[in-house]
C-alpha cells in the first residue's frame, strides 16, 4: 500500500513526461512513415542515384543502434552549425529509425501486389502514375499496415531512449524523481507499469486492426 501512495504522489510529475513521450512517438511516425514510403518507392526507381540515396537512408537507419543514431545527430548537428533542441534532435533520429524500418515493410507490401494488377491498370488506359496511385498503392498499404502498426509500438518504446539527450520525456522524469527521492525501485516499477499498460493498449488496437484488414481474406 505504501508503494501505491508513493505512486499516486509521483503521477502528476510523470504525466507531462508521458505527454512528451507520446508527442515524440506521434511525430516520429508522422514524419518517418511517409519518408519510409518515399524511400521504398525510390528503391524501386530506375535511376541509380535515387536507389543509392534510399539505400543509404535505410541501411544507416536500420544498421545503427537507435542510441548511436541519436548521439550521432546530437553531437554532429551543432558541429555543422545547426542548433536544434534535444527534442527536435530526438524527433529526427526516431523518424529516421522508424522510416528505415517502415520502408522495408512498404517495400514488401509493394512487392506483394501481383504484377497483373499493374498490367490491368495499364491496359485499362491508366497512366503509370495514376495506376500506381489508385490501384497498386492502396493494396500495398493494406498489406503493410499490420507490420507498420507493430512498428509504431516499437517506436513508442524507443522514445524512452531520448532520455540520454535529456528530452523531458517519461524516462527522464522518472530518473529525476528517482534521483531526488532515492526510491529507485518504486519509481522505475511505476515507469514500467506506465510504459507496459500503454503498450498493451496499442497492441490491443493493432490486433483489432489486423483482424479488420484480413477480413477480406477469410472467404472460406
Amino acid at each position, binding site marked *: 500500500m505504501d508503494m501505491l501512495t508513493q505512486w499516486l504522489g509521483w503521477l502528476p510529475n510523470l504525466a507531462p513526461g508521458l505527454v512528451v513521450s507520446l508527442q515524440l512517438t506521434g511525430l516520429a511516425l508522422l514524419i518517418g512513415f511517409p519518408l519510409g514510403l518515399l524511400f521504398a518507392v525510390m528503391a524501386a526507381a530506375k535511376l541509380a542515384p535515387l536507389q543509392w540515396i534510399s539505400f543509404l537512408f535505410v541501411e544507416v537507419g536500420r544498421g545503427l543502434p537507435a542510441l548511436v543514431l541519436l548521439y550521432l545527430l546530437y553531437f554532429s548537428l551543432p558541429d555543422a552549425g545547426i542548433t536544434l533542441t534535444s527534442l527536435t534532435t530526438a524527433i529526427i533520429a526516431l523518424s529516421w529509425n522508424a522510416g528505415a524500418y517502415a520502408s522495408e515493410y512498404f517495400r514488401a507490401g509493394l512487392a506483394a501486389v501481383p504484377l497483373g494488377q499493374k498490367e490491368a491498370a495499364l491496359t485499362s488506359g491508366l497512366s503509370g502514375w495514376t495506376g500506381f496511385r489508385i490501384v497498386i498503392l492502396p493494396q500495398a498499404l493494406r498489406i503493410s499496415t499490420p507490420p507498420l502498426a507493430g512498428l509504431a509500438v516499437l517506436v513508442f518504446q524507443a522514445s*524512452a531512449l531520448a532520455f540520454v539527450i535529456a528530452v523531458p520525456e517519461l524516462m527522464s522524469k*522518472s*530518473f529525476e524523481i528517482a534521483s531526488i527521492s532515492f526510491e*529507485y525501485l518504486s519509481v*522505475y516499477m511505476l515507469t514500467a507499469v506506465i*510504459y507496459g499498460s500503454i503498450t498493451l493498449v496499442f497492441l490491443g488496437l493493432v490486433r483489432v486492426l489486423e483482424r479488420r484488414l484480413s477480413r477480406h481474406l477469410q472467404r472460406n
Partner: protein
Amino acid sequence: MELLPAIAQGVGLTLYVTGSALLYGGIIGLVLVGAARSPFAIIRGIATLYINVVRVIPPITWLFLIYFGLPQYALRLSTIQAAIIGFSIIASAFMAEIYRSGLLSIPEGQREAAHALGLGTITTVGHIITPQAFRVALPSIATYGIGLLKDSALASTIGVREITYYAQQSARQTHEGLLSFITAGALYIVISLIIAVVARRTDLVLRKKIGVA
C-alpha cells in the same frame, strides 16, 4: 585516426553482453516455451504472462529497474551483471516466441511417425523435433541476435564500457562527435554482417543435413 582503437576497446564487452544474454535468454526461453505448452493451465498462464510483461516494457526501463532498483534490496550488481541480467530477461521472451514458431512449423506427422517407430517422447523431442525446429528457427535467432547486439548499446547508459560507451567518451574528449559515432556505427554494422554471414553459412549446412518436410 586514434578513434578506431579507442572505440574498438568496447567490442569485447559488447560481444560479451550480447553473447551472454543470447545464451542465458536462449536457455530461459526453452524453459518458457516448455512451460507455455504445459498441460497445467496455471503454468501456461504464468509463462504467457511473463512473455508479455517482459516485452511491453522498454529495454532501458528494464536496465534501470535492475541496476538502480535492486540494490535497494541489498542486491548490489556490477554494471555488467545488471546488463546481462536485463538483456537475458528481455531475450528470453523473444527467444521463446522464436522457438514457438519453429516448433509450429514441424508437421504433426513427424511426431506420429516417431511414435509409430516406437521412439519415446524424450528421444522424439531430442532427435526428431528439436533439430528440425532449430533449423527453422536459426535465421530468426540470427536476426534477433543482431537486434540484441544493437540493443546492447543501451548498456552504456548504466556505465558498461562497451562500444557506445567509448564512443561517447572519445566524443567528449576529442570533440569529434560525428566521427566517434560513425566509427561506433561502423563497428556495429561490421559485427552484424559477420553474424549474418556465419548464420547463413550454418543455415546452408543444416539445410543439407536436416530437411524439413
